[in-house]
């Protein structure tokens, strides 16, 4: 974890959970796996506070624990997960666009609380919606549950691993920490609950004084009922949201490059392979042209031939977003996810260079990208830019690490006068460097 990332994590933790949790969290990021007592000793906080802070962090999936030999439980921080906290508003907004206010509130509750049972979520969301509705109207639990089920079906929320039910063998003492397991199939299985009820409005303020002790006692009695889905916790599935963002980016890229119809086709293809394709696959499941035709949105009156033409056009495009993998079923097409993302990253790099250094620099940058390795003289020739300016720009970009130098010695002693120096762009490292800069900027 880079320094900038650690600093950003510490700011995020401080904003969301306070200073104590921040201290413990940053310590764990810096030092890796640690048992409880060592954490307390190194951070010089009381054991009680360390325990509370760890409980909060585990609840929000920011820290995981593992049982090591000799029964020692070690805690490890998940730095990348902490950085995702930056994106919470974007996740909530996405849920709003897909599932309206109900979905938005469900995702918001899940993100704010880490993990929750379905009944608790439904209840809270119904209460919140009821408050915003007009007087006299209340939100039914069934509507909220339906939205929850839809979110689970499209994998936006998933079940947390459950405590493995090992038989309690009497002679052996219970393990120091429960092992959490989750079956792939069960991850999106919604328990059969019959949640009947309506959202409750909070009492108006003048009744508060008398209402509070009564309300407290009422809740106390209510909570005695056993919850039907006790132990089944749900969390927001961030990977699925990322997949959605990726799909959106690809679709808008296609729309910019070609036209609206082709972007709709690509969007349909992506939607069909949402659930069947794992999130880090290089390309989607092959889809036949007939299937695509059937799944196109109703409003589009695109005939089969036109669709085929579009698909051929997309497959022949030099950007290679869509590839043809076979001819059965009218032509099998796949979307090259990795290639698409790589070209999107490159395009971002290019635009950054253009904005930072000017369009001539951008020309040089694109040139080096295309030709992979170039000597200084070749750069001047190909870009048709006078030598002095070209040198100046190259060195500027070199100093900012967008371009790197590759030495190829002619002689074994690497004498500078007799080696080639080639300029090249390593997309991966340049992209990582940009990301690092973004992290730095957001921590300020």
């Amino acid at each position: 974890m880079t320094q900038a990332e650690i600093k950003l994590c510490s700011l995020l933790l401080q904003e969301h959970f306070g200073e104590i949790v921040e201290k413990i969290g940053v310590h764990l990021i810096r030092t890796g796996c640690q048992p409880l007592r060592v954490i307390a000793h190194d951070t010089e906080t009381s054991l009680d506070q360390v325990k509370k802070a760890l409980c909060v962090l585990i609840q929000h999936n920011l820290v995981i624990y593992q049982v090591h030999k000799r029964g020692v439980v070690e805690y490890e921080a998940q730095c990348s997960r902490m950085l995702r906290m930056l994106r919470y508003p974007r996740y909530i907004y996405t849920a709003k666009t897909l599932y309206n206010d109900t979905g938005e509130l469900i995702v918001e509750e899940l993100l704010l609380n880490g993990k929750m049972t379905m009944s608790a979520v439904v209840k809270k969301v119904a209460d919140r919606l009821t408050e915003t509705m007009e007087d006299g109207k209340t939100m039914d639990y069934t509507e909220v549950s339906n939205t929850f089920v839809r979110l689970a079906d499209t994998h936006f929320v998933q079940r947390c691993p459950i405590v493995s039910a090992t038989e309690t063998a009497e002679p052996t003492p219970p393990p120091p920490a429960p092992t959490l397991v989750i079956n792939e199939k069960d991850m999106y299985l919604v328990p059969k609950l019959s949640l009947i009820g309506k959202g409750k409005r909070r009492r108006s303020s003048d009744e508060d004084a008398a209402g509070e002790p009564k309300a407290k006692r009422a809740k106390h009695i209510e909570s005695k009922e056993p919850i039907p889905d006790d132990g089944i916790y749900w969390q927001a599935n961030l990977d699925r949201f990322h997949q959605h963002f990726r799909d959106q980016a690809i679709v808008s890229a296609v729309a910019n490059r070609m036209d609206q119809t082709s972007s709709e086709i690509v969007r349909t293809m992506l939607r069909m392979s949402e659930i069947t394709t794992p999130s880090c696959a290089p390309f989607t499941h092959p889809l036949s042209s007939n299937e695509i035709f059937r799944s196109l949105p109703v409003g589009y009156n695109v005939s089969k031939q036109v669709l085929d033409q579009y698909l051929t056009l997309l497959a022949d495009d030099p950007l290679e977003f869509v590839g043809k993998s076979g001819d059965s079923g009218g032509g099998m097409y796949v979307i090259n996810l990795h290639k698409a993302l790589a070209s999107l990253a490159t395009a971002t790099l290019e635009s950054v260079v253009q904005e930072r250094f000017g369009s001539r620099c951008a020309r040089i940058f694109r040139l080096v990208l295309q030709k992979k390795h170039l000597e200084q003289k070749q750069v001047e020739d190909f870009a048709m830019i006078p030598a002095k300016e070209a040198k100046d720009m190259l060195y500027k970009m070199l100093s900012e690490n967008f371009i790197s130098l590759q030495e190829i010695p002619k002689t074994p002693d690497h004498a500078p006068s007799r080696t080639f120096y080639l300029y090249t762009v390593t997309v991966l490292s340049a992209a990582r460097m940009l990301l690092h800069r973004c992290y730095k900027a957001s921590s300020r």
Partner: protein
Amino acid sequence: MAGNRGRGRAAYTFNIEAVGFSRGDKLPDVVLKPPPLFPDTDYKPVPLKTGESEEYILALKQELRETVKRMPYFMETPEEKQDIERYSKRYMKVYKEEWIPDWRRLPREMMPRKKCKKGSKPTKMKDTDKGTSLTNTADVLKKIEELEKKGDGEKSDEENEETEGSKEKNKEDEDDEDDAAEQEEYDEEEQEEENDYINSYFDNGDDFGVDSDDNMDEATY
């Protein structure tokens, strides 16, 4: 290395033309101070994207920042105790929900150990009893014992009250409730065993916390 090893002679070890200066050109001035902190750039940054969705997301972010401070997960740093307890502080306490985690999902060492503390208190008393009786100063020791028992009675009564209060505030039902109930019963039993006094001597009830500011009443008339 091999080549020009002229000591003191200004000779470059690499081909100067490759860098961009031909022989005899004036080298750029030597810079003696650090570069400016915010240098002027020729190209100004592109303006931020604004639009309906971006504004909504921004509004969400502001709301989120406010909301997280009120959540039970936000642990406030305990303030230092002030010399004089301010009157207004008591009435400005923000009502915050208690959050009890699901202990079944956490390692066992996470649970706050209340039982041990309560268990050790009466045993400590027993030890001091034994210890003091050995030294053979009966009257003084009896007074100390009585004061200790009184002190213990007050403290454990207070803790009792707090656990009851937190139980009521508990909105989500978790397994901890059973534990709390168990501990409470345990305390009461201990109380009855150790104290010679009747429990109702200290009629604490709901007024106990409120009256803590007043001088400790030696006796209620």
